């Protein structure tokens, strides 16, 4: 009995065994997978809202299409560019240039903030024309969809700030000095990869929402 219990437990080989995943040696893909599942959940949220949108549109006579605030086109361009700068950050990091990578992360962060500010301007423009949350179902959905997208994008901005802070530490201290308190270059890369997946999703989601609101009707 005693041997049965203990003999099956062996010391793990030192390195490189995919089967010996431990907390400190998580699969590099785990972060990205976590983000992917978050994307699935957020996708379900917007799918549910889309079906509500379509159902509500087919009911009643109160559906009045909003005029599209022109600034939304600028915002869309800003967000699309931010996806490119995000990829530039990853490219620089793959080439080991943390300095440049960090610059691009910072640019992405600024573009994200610009997008959010632009969205607020769009809200303001609609409000000044007398379109509020309760005005009609289309305006209700406009504020709900853009608001929820904005909240999720703000979450992405927080993650980006975290990534930026991590890579700043990379810059200040050489990789050799990375201790337990300091994130390793690998971890920073993984955070960046995970955040990039999320960021591109936010980008695609925005284009989808824009099409739903103003092309579909």
């Amino acid at each position, binding site marked *: *009995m*005693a*041997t*049965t*219990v*203990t*003999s*099956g*437990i*062996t*010391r*793990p080989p030192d390195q490189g*065994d995919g*089967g*010996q*995943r*431990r*907390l400190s040696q*998580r*699969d590099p*893909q*785990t972060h990205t*997978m*976590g983000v992917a*599942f*978050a994307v*699935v*959940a*957020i*996708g*379900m*949220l*917007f*799918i*549910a*809202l889309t*079906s*509500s949108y379509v*159902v*509500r549109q087919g*009911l*009643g*006579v*109160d*559906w009045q299409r909003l005029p599209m605030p022109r600034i939304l086109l600028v915002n869309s361009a800003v967000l699309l560019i931010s996806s490119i700068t995000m990829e530039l950050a990853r490219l620089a990091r793959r080439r080991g240039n943390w300095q440049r990578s960090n610059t691009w992360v910072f640019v992405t962060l600024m573009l994200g903030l610009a997008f959010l500010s632009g969205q607020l301007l769009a809200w303001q423009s609609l409000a000044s024309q007398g379109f*509020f*949350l*309760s005005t009609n*179902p289309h305006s*209700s959905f406009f504020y*709900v969809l853009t608001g*929820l997208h904005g909240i999720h994008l703000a979450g992405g901005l927080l993650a980006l700030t975290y990534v930026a802070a991590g890579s700043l530490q990379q810059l200040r201290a050489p990789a050799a000095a990375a201790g337990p308190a300091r994130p390793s270059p690998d971890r920073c890369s993984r955070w960046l990869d995970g955040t990039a997946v999320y960021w591109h999703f936010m980008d695609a989601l925005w284009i989808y929402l824009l099409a739903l609101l103003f092309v579909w009707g």
Partner: protein
Amino acid sequence: MASHSSQTVHTEIRHGFIRTYIFSTDHKVIGIQYLMLALFSVLLGMGLSVFMRLRLAWPAAKWPTLEQIFSVGFSGGQMTPEFYLAMMTMHGTIMVFFVLTTAPLSGFGNYFLPIQIGARDMAFPVLNMLSFWVTFVALAVMVSALLVTGGAPISGWTAYAPLSALGQVAGPGLGTGQTLWVISIAIFCAGSLLTALNFLCTTINLRARGMSLMRMPLTVWAWFTTAILALLAFPVLLAGGILLLLDRVGGSSFFIPGGLVVSDKLIPHEGGSPLLWQHLFWFFGHPEVYIAILPGMGVTSHILSTFARKPIFAYKAMVSAIFAIGFISYIVWGHHMFMSGMSPFSSMVFSVTTMAVGVPSAIKTFNWLATLRGAQIRFTTPMLFALGFVSLFVTGGITGLLLAQPAIDIYLHDTSFVVAHFHLIMGVAAIFGIFGGTYYWFPKMFGRMMSERLGRIHFWFTLAGVYAIFMPMHFMGISGAPRRYAQLTEFTYLQHLQPVQIFISICAFITIAAQFIFLYNFFVSMWKGERAGVNPWEATSLEWTIPSPPPHDNFGELVPVVNHGPYEYSVPGEPTDFVMQNAPAGSVAS
């Protein structure tokens, strides 16, 4: 039995009290936190049901003592119908969300999923801690709905619009109480999503070497599938909750139709669809039923195999059945809405898909019975509860097939027949799964055994009690007794059923009293129970290879290597009648 820790180096990380027991990132502590949250909630929910049973059995009785505590709810000493409805709403909500979702999935899942797959912790420990505290905040907000002016909402756990969307004008509790209800549910959705995400990443990424998918215990399969369901279902409820909240506080009209006159007041909304809320709610609501019951099925399979000392019959069929149930749960939500005026074609589709759930359910039941066939059963308390689960699953499931017929459902809809059906299958069967899991894993969690004698008394009282409570409700429903009514004595055609109401109430009180045997056993055994060894049940899965209770890092520096399936019991040629999952390969004679 050799001490495991003598050969293993454990890195004990010492933190202060707060980091160890309150804001802990240890999946085991978080699991127990969830279980304690569920225990608090189940006691609260049970307490609320006492009020309901008092009102139904003795509608005219006066309770001067209670009037002193609840001056509004008991004005004149008699419980008001609104107070009854508030109790009903909160009973349902607290039980479904804070007991049946948290205990089986987040509680036991958090504690045992990482250990059963040979991991040190969840994939994202900090996220795990966060999900518990988010859920805790959700519970605090929900409980506060009981305490605010106007009291708790009266719209039922389903919060059907437009009643739930109109605000104070529609009734007491529909003002602040209902707003808090919606906010609490939205927060709960967020917490559950984090849990689901963590479970999925953990199961996929952190399995020990050799723990192939087909070597995972059925508990792990059940938690994994449940996490998929939660990940896809809770966002839909969240969407509905956000829209409902905006209808309430933002002046929008997603769910409020035009021309509605409530309490002689014209409601200034137009165009919304109450049915839209029902679709969003039940698209979540039906998978939610399986979120509550699937972990119970996993635990039951695990316990039956352990105490039958036989491999689970048709392991792969069990895994497929779990997945089939999970998949079908997404295409049956319309069966909650046969009364909503949907087209006969839609009704037929939802009816057929609903009856299709019977196929994987029957496969599971058949396999459980086949596992028991010819077995030398050890009738321990966890085994009794697992057998009770099978019994309740069949009893409660059969009536599901009846209700799946639109023609029958239109007659039985909103009667106590439905109440009996979902209580047996979703409520009591799932609770039996929780009890089974508690008795089974208590030695591992707390290092001591629970009293078998008290456990058996608890089991028999509870089993007899729940059947005595819910079987008569079927007959009342067939006689036309509607649910959600505080009082049925006003209907002459139901007056002869009043003795049945009294019978049900008395049975309920006895069953509730029996739960204190469990509480006594649970808390006393924690300190005074007989010490448990590493593997008191002689089970095979990995949690039984490490000390009871497990150290902070579970397996320490040594990680298990899995060579065997989860249910290798009574293997011919083996010295013992069980083979641990991490026993050396090739030790099986076959």
